[in-house]
């Protein structure tokens, strides 16, 4: 692949992002505890951030739109984490466990 301005081509960043995304996704599917799933969500969001920043800077005429988007995403990730933890704590107070597999009161 051609030698790019920053020494390493953009594909490395994209693959890193993709790997992080897949780990997060896998984490969501496999983790038993809600907290674990929260972590995986954070992972996925950060993977998207990496993409944004990489694309933003590697364009022929680089724009900062990517970074702006990344900043927004970070703030929202924080808010999401807060709300998520609030709900998880509430569940823990009721059932003394946060094991998602056991929470099947409503099904089918």
């Amino acid at each position, binding site marked *: 692949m051609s030698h790019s301005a920053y020494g390493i*081509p*953009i594909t490395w960043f994209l693959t890193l992002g993709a790997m992080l995304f897949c780990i997060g996704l896998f984490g969501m599917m496999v983790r038993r505890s809600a907290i674990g799933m929260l972590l995986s969500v954070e992972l996925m969001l950060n993977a998207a951030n990496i993409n944004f920043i990489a694309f933003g800077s590697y364009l*022929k005429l680089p724009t900062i739109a990517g970074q702006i988007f990344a900043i927004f995403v970070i703030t929202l990730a924080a808010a999401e984490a807060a709300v998520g933890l609030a709900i998880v704590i509430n569940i823990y107070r009721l059932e003394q466990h946060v094991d998602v597999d056991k*929470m*099947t*009161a409503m099904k*089918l």
Partner: protein
Amino acid sequence: MIEHAWLIPLLPVIAFGLVLLFGRKAPGNGAYVAIAAICASLAMSLAVAFQWFLGGASAAHNGLYSVTIQWMPVGSQMIDMGFSIDALSVVMLLVVTIVASLVQIYSIGYMHGDPRYPRYFAYHSLFAAAMLTLVIANNVVLMFMSWELVGLTSYLLIGFWFERPSAMRAAKKAFLVTRVGDVGFLAGIILIYLKTGSLNLFGDAGVFENLTRLDVIGPWGLPLTAIAGLLLFCGAVGKSAQFPLHVWLPDAMEGPTPVSALIHAATMVAAGVYLVARMYPVYLADSSGMALQVVAYVGAFTALFAATIGIAQNDIKRVLAYSTVSQLGYMIMSLGVFGYVAGMFHLFTHAFFKANLFLGSGSVIHGTGTQDIREMGGLKKKMPWTYWTFLISTLSLCGIPFVTAGGWSKEEILAVAWHTNRVVFVVGVLGAFTTAFYMFRLVYKTFYGEPRKHDIHAHESPRVMLVPLVILAFLAIFAGYVGTPWANVFERNLVPVLGHHYEQVLENKLAGMHHGFNLTVFLFATGSALLGIFMATIIWLKPVLRIEKLEPSFGWLAKLVENKYYIDEIYQATIIRGLMAAAWLAFAFDKWVIDYAIVNGVGYLTRLASDLWGWFDRTFVDGLVNIIGWITKTTGSALRYLQTGVAQHYIFLLVSALVVISLAVIAGHIREEAWIPIAGFYR
């Protein structure tokens, strides 16, 4: 008076309404109102007849007076309907009104004390009205409507005592069998209407004028006129109880005897003959002549066939019923062999003496309380009036010449048969012999010898029943003088009814027939009658010839004849059971195949599918199925089952769906090695 001829049928209808609504309260609880109406009609008919035959009206209206009103619009043209007076209808008017009024007077005595007395007279008036409308109708549909109404009233009157199951069944049988015939009649009407474009008989646009349009070769190589003729004849067969639709008449004897006298002897059954006579131009226009052939042979066969059965009957009314069937066969036979005038003349005379016979048998039953002639005997002395009137009518029926009316008309028929169709002539003579044989068997069994059952103390009927008997007996003798070979008034007036064209056709069909007294025919007719009487006397009056000795050789024949050739049983086995089986089969098909299998099946399947899922998910919740087994099983089957309640599973399904979608989307582009430009795109 001719212009007001439409009043004749209207009066009985009004009487019907009055008696039905205010029966109990009317004078003589309904009887006098009905009789007044029918007598008024009789008077008007006589006036019309007088004006028509003697007053020169027939000449004034050159043989036909027809008035119509608008009835039914079809597209641009309008079908109209009305009444017409000509010689044929006047004759029938006379017959119907005379017999009807006499029978109604007779019924006062016979039906005395019946719980539904007024309703009987209401039905009687309705019958008279329907019959009179039929006779003067000039539109085929009006004829059909009155034809069916006549059938309805016979149904009501036969089933008058409907508490008796046998009467009820007889009524239904009568209506259905005649209905089968009527369907043929209806088909005939439709064919005629479509081909000639009109339903009115007379007038230049009428049916009779453009019958030529019908004379085109239709299916089975027959001209349409023949087919139309045959279809109309179906109606006649049904109504006039010809073979094979004759089964209903003997059972119709379940009704009160005056009813049998009026309807099943004189008027209604004659309607079939009247229909063929009225539509005679259709038969004459038939180039192949097939229709008339069929009419002749059916008539002849019925005449002989019914007469033979008459011999073996033991119920007085059934004997007379079969004799009616046989005499109707005679009339139809005569029409078949171009004996147009003879047929109508026989109908004219037959009405009187047969009505008299039935009323006579009515008074016998009224007196003795039984209908089985084996229990009667020796009534000669106890019921002299009934005996003499019965004897006169029997002689008239057997066709004794010079003295009785029946003689003249039967001799006339045989004369025509002699001229045109010898086979029919032979059958006629044999018929005459058998008729005389069974009639005198009846007379000897009922009136001669000693009373077989001793507890019967027969008494003469009251005068109100005897007066009609005497009048009818008088007519049975003198009605014949209208049509004697020398001064045939009947023929002079009836033939022009056909209209000049068909009159000519009839003329050349009967060309060369000797119009006077025909010695050979006379000898044969009277000879066979006298032989019949002689045979009856030597068997039943003075038992020279023991009937029992004949038993071994003729036993089976007697058995066969006794059971009316098992016709009823055959019908029962084939048609009626077949119909019921078809009905059951159709219902089973409807219930199981269509309703259950298809409709409920579809409904059931969807219910089944959803219930299956319901059951499936209940079992899963309780059972701890391991994850791997669960994933492979569920993704395959129930969608609902996907909703497991566990968050991870949801996300798993989301991801798998996403993967599938992305692959599907990219599939289109893989071959274009789409990925390479990304690197080039960026620095």
